[in-house]
């Protein structure tokens, strides 16, 4: 499945692993923090509406 990368196989594969890994971490952290903040905002807004 993986093409023959010859003597540079480690070099190429490490580049892809590091880069795609960093992109996944960036998107993952952004989405997790986004959801947390959105939920917290809704909670605070509901509390403030309840308390007038």
């Amino acid at each position: 499945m993986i093409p023959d990368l010859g003597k540079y196989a480690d070099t190429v594969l490490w580049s892809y692993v590091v880069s795609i890994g960093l992109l996944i971490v960036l998107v993952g952290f952004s989405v997790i923090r986004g959801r947390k903040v959105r939920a917290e905002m809704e909670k605070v807004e509901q509390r403030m509406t309840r308390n007038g």
Partner: protein
Amino acid sequence: MSIAAKANALWEYANPRKFLATSERVLPFFWITSGACLVVGLVWGFFFTPDDYKQGSTVKIIYLHVPAALMAINCWLMMLATSLVWLVRRHHVSALAARAAAPIGIVMTLIALATGAIWGQPMWGTWWAWDPRLTSFLILFLFYLGYVALWEAIEDSDTAADLTSVLCLVGSVFAILSRYAVNFWNQGLHQGASVMRAGAITGTDTEEKVSNIYFYPLLLCIVGFVLLFIALVLYRTGTEIRARRIKALLTRERVNG
């Protein structure tokens, strides 16, 4: 609609509610198209392009290294534009957009530096050299870290936005140097531009350029990185707007007892 009217319509997005409503509507498009472009571009480049006659299979690193380096520079330029909007017109959304973009810039610069080092080892015989382009990229990376640290260090968000905007103006020198360092100082290991050069694309110059076999998947990866950057900036700016609202609501709650 005249150009002036269109430009004025842009300022409507300085309203956080309008910004959030519009970004929620367009975000699915940017997530899906960026994912599609990246998957197709990377699979095409990795599996279906041949080895280079000089660099062997390491040429496949180009599909990550070049788009990440481009975005590292352009992210800072976007932060410069939004920082200027903040300094001139005091729109909070623009300051928050700059804040939201900085961690993306950090990751893009890190990918460019890491893939550059991994690629450089077999090609140049060294992981790192104090070459003008590499050094200016490292300084740009440190500026990104300083920018994020400054936002975190200052309690008052307006003061933080002011100071980080000034830092952004200063750091722009290095963002531009990262792009043109090779042209300014004709020395070092890193080659000059071989992709985003007008003459290379139109074929009117005689310098070596990236072959079309590599260029088309690379172009797709660049488009994918640009779309991913837009998606992340929109999403993260929305998060920053909500975080600011939470802070304002909690302050109001405390004041009202």
